[in-house]
């Protein structure tokens, strides 16, 4: 019994030492759902995190050449796992700030119980729930991705502008599905559209044909499907097309996966559209895209530009504050202030020199200008895509 306790204690210490960066280096958390619901997005997003860390270290590191250490942790897209993982990142690895988590539910849990009490800044590149806006966060929670509130609204307006006034609404029964569906429905109905039928569905069911039959009874010929394209969304879409329940299908960004095209085949998806947050066309984006591509990443993958921005911006804030975690949140706001000199993604050495000289800088993010509002949210840019060959093709911007 005593031996067991001693063994356990030494295991904790050993694990703690293994996971703690060396003295002088600065640690940041790179948190994300490597397992769980977002596993499909994980490889490219993690690559993007690491790409930003590598650029910082290749161009002189933090301050006097200290390394920026990315402490990777898996939140499993599950609140309990996430709280456990982030507690370790914050208390064992002693990070001064973190990028992630990705799933909104995990962001809420982690912020409430770990990062806000510990005074650590959290920047999520993928947590889109409107509820994150309302967190009482002492200005410690930011995001580089816009809230679904915006996406729901612009999607509703775009559909109405394209002449669709009656839709059926089907969404996955989780935070993402419900949040986006509610935002969409509110705007769509307010602007004169009709939601003829609405139903949530559980993930992981064998068949959704009966659910679809119920939805189709409402008489709409367009189905708005808020789901993930490598999960139940794929089954719903396939069964609906096979049985001609609807003529046109519109999905959120969760449906924008190549798995959908690969499995169903592009010739069957002529009437399938997806909305997705896009990085505003900018020089920043091109710089990031070519750099990320040559580092072996896919710049068109979902949320890679927001992931990159989260890490790069955090590194800039650390450089400016010397790693004092109480000042990072104020620094984040200064760094995107339009008045300073422009910094593109990857221009770490230039930014470092400007900061050393005490000059103001303005980071132009790969995903947009990152003008944080009072809640730490950014306005979004969205576009509508359709299937062309093996990939998605831009149709129109959504306003």
């Amino acid at each position, binding site marked *: 019994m005593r031996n067991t306790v001693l063994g356990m204690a030494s295991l904790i210490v050993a694990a703690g030492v293994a996971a703690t960066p060396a003295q002088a280096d600065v640690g940041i958390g790179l948190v994300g759902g490597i*397992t769980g619901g977002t*596993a*499909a997005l994980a490889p490219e997003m993690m690559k993007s995190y690491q790409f930003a860390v590598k650029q910082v270290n290749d161009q002189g590191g933090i301050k006097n050449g200290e390394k920026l250490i990315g402490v990777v942790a898996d939140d499993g897209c599950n609140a309990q796992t996430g709280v456990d993982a982030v507690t370790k990142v914050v208390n064992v690895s002693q990070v001064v700030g973190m990028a992630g988590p990705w799933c909104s539910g995990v962001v809420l849990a982690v912020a409430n119980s770990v990062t806000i009490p510990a005074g650590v800044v959290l920047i999520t590149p993928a947590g889109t729930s409107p509820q994150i806006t309302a967190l009482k966060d002492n200005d410690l929670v930011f995001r580089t991705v816009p809230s679904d509130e915006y996406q729901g609204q612009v999607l509703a307006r775009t559909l109405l502008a394209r002449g669709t006034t009656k839709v059926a609404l089907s969404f996955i*029964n989780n935070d993402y599905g419900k949040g986006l569906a509610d935002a969409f429905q509110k705007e769509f109905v307010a602007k004169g559209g009709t939601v003829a039928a609405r*139903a*949530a*569905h*559980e993930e*992981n*069911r*064998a*068949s959704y*044909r*009966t*659910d*679809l*039959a*119920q939805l189709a*009874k409402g008489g709409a010929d367009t189905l708005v499907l808020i789901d993930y394209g*490598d*999960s139940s969304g*794929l*089954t719903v879409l*396939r069964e609906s*097309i*096979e*049985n001609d329940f609807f003529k046109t299908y519109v999905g959120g960004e969760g449906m924008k996966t190549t*798995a959908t095209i*690969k*499995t*169903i*085949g592009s010739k*069957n998806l002529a009437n399938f559209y997806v909305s997705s947050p896009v990085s505003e066309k900018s020089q920043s984006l091109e710089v990031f895209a070519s750099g990320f591509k040559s580092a072996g990443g896919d710049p068109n993958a979902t949320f890679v530009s927001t992931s990159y921005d989260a890490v790069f911006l955090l590194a800039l804030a650390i450089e400016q504050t010397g790693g004092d975690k109480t000042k990072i949140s104020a620094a984040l706001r200064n760094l995107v202030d339009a008045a300073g000199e422009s910094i593109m993604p990857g221009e770490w050495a230039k930014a470092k020199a400007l900061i050393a000289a005490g000059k103001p800088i303005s980071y132009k993010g790969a995903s947009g200008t990152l003008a944080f509002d009072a809640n730490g949210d950014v306005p979004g840019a969205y576009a509508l895509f359709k299937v062309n060959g093996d990939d998605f093709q831009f149709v129109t911007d959504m306003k």
Partner: protein
Amino acid sequence: MDISSFINFFLIPGIILGSIYALGAIGVTLVYAIMRHGHFAHGDLATFGAFMVLLFSASSGLSPYAALPIAAVAAGLMAIAIDWLFYTHLRTLPKIITTISSLGVALMLRAVVQIFWGVNTLSYETGIARPENWFGLRIKPHEVVTVVMVIGLVVALEIFLRHSKWGKAMRAMSDNPDLASLCGIDNRKVIALTWMLVGALCAASGFFLGLNTQVKSLMGWNILLPTFAAAILGGVGRIEGAILGGLIVGICEEMSVLVIRSEYKVLSGFVILLLALLIRPTGLFRGKVL
């Protein structure tokens, strides 16, 4: 709602789902009859079988249908190996210990699938299969195949159990293992044979589930509850009961959206299970009460 859309969108999907549950329930009921414990790794064994089909068809270029027999043998051997490694030495202990052990085996099987294939959704065939119109009935080719093959498997199993030497031995052991042993039946061989059959049935149910939907690591775990509901509803130890139970659970599940919110559709099997336990714990065909 008119009669044809009722049949097309509620009855036919129900029958397909029911056939898949039935295959699983036969396996559950066989384990109950011969080994006398609940086998919670059943769903994940089905997942394993479904991924074996994927493995063999991808590596050899065979069609998934042709790969099914190989995968069935692989899953059967896996079941025998699991029994030999994890269950054999628990046989003298109370049966419930084996049930707990099977919960651990379920986790291990799932982990193996996730290590090798990840958690992404895969499928046997790409493209879509539009249903053909048979006098107003909209049926997809693989749905016909599913039902025909399930019927074929069940008939073959019945013939085997009723007329072959080993089938009779299995039935004898189900009735009374000690007596069977006294009559010169080698219990160990019968047990191995049972696991072979159970593994093969699991592979088949996993394959048909994957064929009609997608192949993913949690697919089997998700059908565990309706499968057990089907076995218990039909009467534990009764094969014809498992088939009828599977069909009832499948059809009820698909029809449930007519009366309840679709979020709760998943629970139909559970409600049937509760009702069966309350009203007729022996099941429709008077199985064993355990």
